[in-house]
Every structure is written in structure tokens, then in C-alpha cells.
């Protein structure tokens, strides 16, 4: 029959029209600024820099190795290495980035910087409220705007952050153990040397050998 | 000058402008348009004479105009399609350049 399909279609839209007033679960729209969808854990948009502790300048994990800068496909990262060094989270003396800029209007969210970072210093953010009335200043993120605490990282990507923290704790433990062993060895060597020196000298003092510990 | 005469003068002015266009323009479409204008000027005459004529209830002027409008429409359709066909042949609508009978 001619026009049967048209009538069927009209019936369908009518059903939708009235149904949307009857059952609220038909309306899937989220009223955005007031309502938010729950964040999915694997969401990612733009990179940020992780720092440990309370002070973002002190705890910055980044050591300005510039691997991410080289790997970035759209070349949206700009890093200036510092002249001096400062101790990092593991207590090692490292360079730090004097400037670290990411132009997120260029960034394509590929996550390659995150993959290549050997220090777990750069991670993907989930914040998408980035609109700005200034295309140049507003979307060019500097070091301060990029830095976010490890707690924040744990909050947005719990699983991933836990794994990273565990790995870093392990590394740190390893390093500590190594340091301890080295210190022990050093202490032992010192003790030995001291003993030897005391032997060489005249008044050996056994208790004094353990004192540096 | 009375109203009938003013209408007639207006119509003759339209006719002359149409004639001038038809004689001077070289684009076939514009020549056709000039001819349409001349037809329209004639129609205006018919209506004016019907309005101020001795017996308007006979409707002769109106009837003449209605038929004339239909004929003009047919003429425009056929004329423009002939121009289109000629354009396909000679790639031009310039009457000065359409100077050969061979297709």
C-alpha cells in the first residue's frame, strides 16, 4: 500500500514524542553544567606534570631529559633545561625544567609523551574545562599550570597511579637498599679503616668504631 | 492630455525602448526580451482601450490580452529553447557571430 511506510514512521516519531514526556529514562541528555557524567577512569585528554609532596617546584618529577619533547608528533612541548641541579624524589641530584610549556591547541592527545617518559613525570589529565577567551595565552600551559600533585593523579587514574606508585616505591626501596648496602659497606670499610688506623695507632677504641652509624 | 492618451504614450515609450533593445543588443536572449517588452506594450494598449473604450462590458480588450499573454509565454518558451539549441551548436548567443547556416 502506498504511504504505509510514511504512516509507520509517523507512528514511531509520535511514540517517541509522547514517550519522552511519560518516561524520564528516555531522555538521556545530561544537563551539562549542573549535571556531570561520572568520569571514566581511562579518559585522557592533555598531559600534565606530576609532582610529589607539597611543593610543586621541589617535588617535580621531571628531570628535563627532553625525550618527550623529541617524541611529540605535533611538537607541542617546549622544554628549557635548568643550569643548576637539585635533588629529585629519590634524592639524586638532577636537572629540572626551567621552562616546560605545552600548547594544548596543538596537542593531539596521543599519549606518546607519557609512554616514553622514564621518570613517570608526565601523565594524561582528564580536565576538559579548558575553554579560554585567549587563544594564545589561555591554551599555552606553562610549568605551573601543568603541575599537579600525585594525589590528584591518584584521584583521576587510581589503578594506573597505584601501579606507578608501587613501582616507584619498589625502585625507591631498591635504591634505599642499595644506598644502605653502600652505606653499610662504606661504614664497614670506614670501620675497617678506622680499625686499621687505630691498630696502626696506639689507642684502639672498639666502641667508637660503631658510632658513625 | 487625458488619461487614455497618457497610457498610450507610456505604452508607445515602452514599445520604443523594447524596439531599441531588440535592434541594438547582440545577445539573442536580450533580443527576445526586447520583443517580449514590445508585446507587453501592446497589451497595455488593449487594456487602456478596454478601460476607456465605449463598451467595456464586451471584455474584448481583456480577452485579447489574456490570449496575448499565453501566446507570449509559448513564444518565450520556444524562443529560449531555440537559443539553447543554437548555443549548443555554435557555443555563442551573440547574434553577430551566429553567421553560418551549417550546423
Amino acid at each position: 500500500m502506498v504511504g504505509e511506510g510514511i504512516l509507520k514512521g509517523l507512528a514511531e516519531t509520535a511514540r517517541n514524542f509522547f514517550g519522552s514526556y511519560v518516561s524520564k529514562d528516555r531522555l538521556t541528555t545530561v544537563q551539562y553544567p549542573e549535571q556531570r557524567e561520572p568520569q571514566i577512569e581511562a579518559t585522557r585528554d592533555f598531559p600534565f606534570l606530576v609532582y610529589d609532596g607539597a611543593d610543586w617546584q621541589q617535588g617535580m618529577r621531571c628531570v628535563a631529559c627532553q625525550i618527550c619533547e623529541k617524541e611529540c608528533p605535533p611538537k607541542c612541548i617546549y622544554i628549557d633545561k635548568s643550569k643548576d641541579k637539585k635533588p629529585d624524589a629519590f634524592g639524586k641530584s638532577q636537572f629540572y625544567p626551567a621552562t616546560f610549556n605545552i600548547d594544548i591547541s596543538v596537542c593531539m592527545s596521543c599519549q606518546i609523551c607519557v609512554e616514553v617518559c622514564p621518570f613517570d613525570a608526565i601523565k594524561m589529565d582528564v580536565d576538559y574545562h579548558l575553554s579560554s577567551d585567549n587563544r594564545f595565552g589561555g591554551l599555552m600551559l606553562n610549568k605551573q599550570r601543568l603541575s599537579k600533585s600525585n594525589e590528584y593523579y591518584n584521584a583521576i587514574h587510581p589503578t594506573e597511579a597505584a601501579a606507578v606508585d608501587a613501582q616507584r616505591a619498589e625502585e625507591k626501596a631498591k635504591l634505599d637498599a642499595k644506598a644502605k648496602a653502600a652505606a653499610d659497606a662504606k661504614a664497614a670499610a670506614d670501620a675497617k679503616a678506622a680499625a686499621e688506623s687505630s691498630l696502626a695507632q696506639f689507642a684502639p677504641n672498639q666502641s667508637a668504631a660503631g658510632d658513625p652509624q | 492630455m487625458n488619461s487614455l492618451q497618457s497610457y498610450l504614450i507610456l505604452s508607445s515609450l515602452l514599445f520604443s525602448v523594447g524596439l531599441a533593445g531588440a535592434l541594438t543588443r547582440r545577445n539573442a536572449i536580450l533580443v527576445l526580451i526586447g520583443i517580449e517588452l514590445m508585446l507587453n506594450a501592446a497589451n497595455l494598449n488593449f487594456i487602456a482601450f478596454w478601460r476607456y473604450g465605449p463598451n467595456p462590458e464586451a471584455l474584448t480588450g481583456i480577452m485579447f490580452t489574456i490570449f496575448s499573454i499565453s501566446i507570449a509565454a509559448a513564444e518565450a518558451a520556444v524562443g529560449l529553447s531555440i537559443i539553447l539549441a543554437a548555443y549548443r551548436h555554435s557555443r555563442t548567443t551573440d547574434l553577430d557571430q551566429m553567421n553560418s547556416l551549417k550546423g
Partner: protein
Amino acid sequence: MTASFMILAVLTVAGTVSAMGLRNAVHCVLALALSFAGIAMLYLQLGAQFVGFTQILVYVGAVAILAVFAIMMTHNDKPMALPDSHAAWVAGCVVAVAVFAVLTRAIVSSTTAVQIQTQTVAPQPGVTVQQIGDALLHRFVVPLEIMGVLLTAALIGAVVIAMDRREEMK
């Protein structure tokens, strides 16, 4: 000569002159549409409602659009070059002016027109569509039928002439 007649006359003449004088063919057709509309309004002023509306429907709605289509299909929608020789142009204008002069002389000196005018002219001969329809289907029925045949023939003829025949010729 009333004010409304003057306005309409100026409008119509302006449209006509630009339709014949502008360089861009599309502008010419748009001016032509204005001129047709002006003529239609003159018909209305003369009390011929039906003819006036028919004029708009046929000329502005169909003939102008047809002309526009023809212009687009023949690639004439760019400003045209001025004619090389002014001789033809001048000759055409002279002929037109001569025709106008002769016609005006005839109209002004006509005694018939004055005679008609002095007769009592009905203030507005009320012609209804009903009257026109009656006349068309009684007194003018044969011309009407012939007109139908003519229009059909013109329709078919226009289609046949304008049809692209390259496919057939292959």
C-alpha cells in the same frame, strides 16, 4: 494623470530602460521583472485585476525565470563587452526614437481618443472573474481551445528543441 500613474509609469520605464541598457544579462532580466510588475500594476490601476495577476504569474513567475535559466545555461551571466561599432547602436536608437515620435504625434493629435474621453467613462468597469470565465467558455471558447492546443504544442516543442541530443547521435 494621477500621482499613482506617474509613479508606476516612472517605475515601469526605469525597469524597461535598464532591462535594455544594463551590461549584465542577469541584471537585465531582473529589471525586466520589475518592468513586468509595473505593467501588471498599471493593469490593476485600470481595473483589470485578473489580467494583472495573470501578468505577474506568467511574466514574473515564469518568463523571467525561464530567461534567467537560459542565461545561466548559455553562460551569459558575466558583464558583456561593449559593442565594437557604434553604428548599429546609433541606427537602432534612431529608429526607435523615430517610431516613438511618430506614435506620440499620432496619439496627441488623435481625435478619436479625445472623443472617447469626452464620453462618460464608467468610474471603474467592474469586471469579475465570473464574467471573464463566462466569456472564455462561451464567446471565446474556440480561441481558448486553440490556445490549449498551442500551449501543449509549445510545451512539447520546447522540450524537443532544448533536449540534449548528443546521446542519440553517438
